[in-house]
């Protein structure tokens, strides 16, 4: 069985790899133009959550959609190199750690004076109300990272699974023909 990625003696060129994976030049160019704008918009939505419509959940999903567009345009193996599995799993828990850590920092810095997640106790050199607003921003970033990593890993897992199944079915058919 030959692999499309070409890890054997013969290395496929970029053009041959594109043909082998059934990709299209137009889709790749349009996607490479759109993905940076989508990611910029996602970061805007996450940071702008305190001022207008938006927030961590919405921004995280938009950021994940840019990775999904990358998978659709450039193939899943290339996308896995851009966003490795270890990074993805680490980011998934990093967001929750940021959220819970901001709450814990409030208790530690104020020496147990305030309760969990009281943002005004954060050690920032701004006024009381601004400290509350900036604590909300940190929390939004944490939510965004978790949602982005979860949606991306969910999509990658489903896509890998489908590919493995297809391969198994093909192998089974070939085996049947030979017998």
């Amino acid at each position: 069985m030959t692999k499309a990625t070409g890890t054997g003696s013969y290395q496929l060129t970029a053009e041959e790899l594109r043909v082998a994976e059934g990709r299209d030049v137009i889709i790749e160019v349009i996607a490479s133009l759109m993905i940076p704008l989508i990611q910029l918009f996602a970061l805007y939505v996450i940071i702008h959550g305190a001022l207008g419509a938006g927030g961590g959940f919405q921004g995280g999903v938009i950021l994940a959609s840019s990775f999904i567009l990358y998978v659709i345009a450039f193939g899943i193996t290339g996308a896995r190199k851009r966003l490795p599995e270890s990074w993805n799993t680490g980011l998934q828990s990093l967001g929750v750690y940021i959220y819970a850590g901001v709450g814990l920092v409030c208790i530690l810095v104020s020496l147990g004076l305030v309760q969990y997640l009281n943002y005004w106790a954060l050690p920032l050199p701004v006024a009381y109300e601004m400290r509350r607003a900036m604590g909300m921003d940190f929390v939004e970033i944490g939510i965004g990272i978790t949602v982005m990593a979860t949606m991306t890993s969910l999509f990658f897992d489903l896509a890998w699974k489908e590919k493995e199944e297809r391969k198994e079915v093909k192998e089974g058919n070939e085996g049947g023909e030979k017998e």
Partner: protein
Amino acid sequence: MKAESIIGLLMVILLAGLFFYIVEDVPPYGDPNSPALQLVRLNISVDALAVEDELNQGVIPATLVEALAARNFVAPSEVEGVTAGEWDAKIDKGEFYYEEDEKYYHFKKAGNQIEVYRYAPVVRYLEKGLEETDVPNIVTAIIVDYRAYDTLGETTVIFTAGVSVILLLRRRGKL
């Protein structure tokens, strides 16, 4: 036409008719002044004749305080008339940072009884949200500041869902 499809059609028509029947009693969706969002009835009522004059003068009646204390509610500290037959009452607020009195009770005259209502937490969020958090978007202020525990739980739910999908699908050939 099968019997099941006729039953289904009848159910849909019945539910649609029920919706049109009740839709006039439902307050407009998202109206911040709708009574269902503002006031919670406490099922305490006091005879109006003795109490009404005291309330109008801004004095807290003793019978009202007794009726509240019998149900383990905090005594009001200040009474203020809103319109004819309706009064707002504040309670002493002993929070660490925010030490002002909080608008808490609402008394309304119905017939010859005075009914006691409590203001919902949403009223306080809408009134004090911008002042306390300096965030113009009240939805974010409620989700991430006032109800931060709830949002931490939601984030953990999403994280748990992602981990479960990893455990179920990421097999890599080993079953």
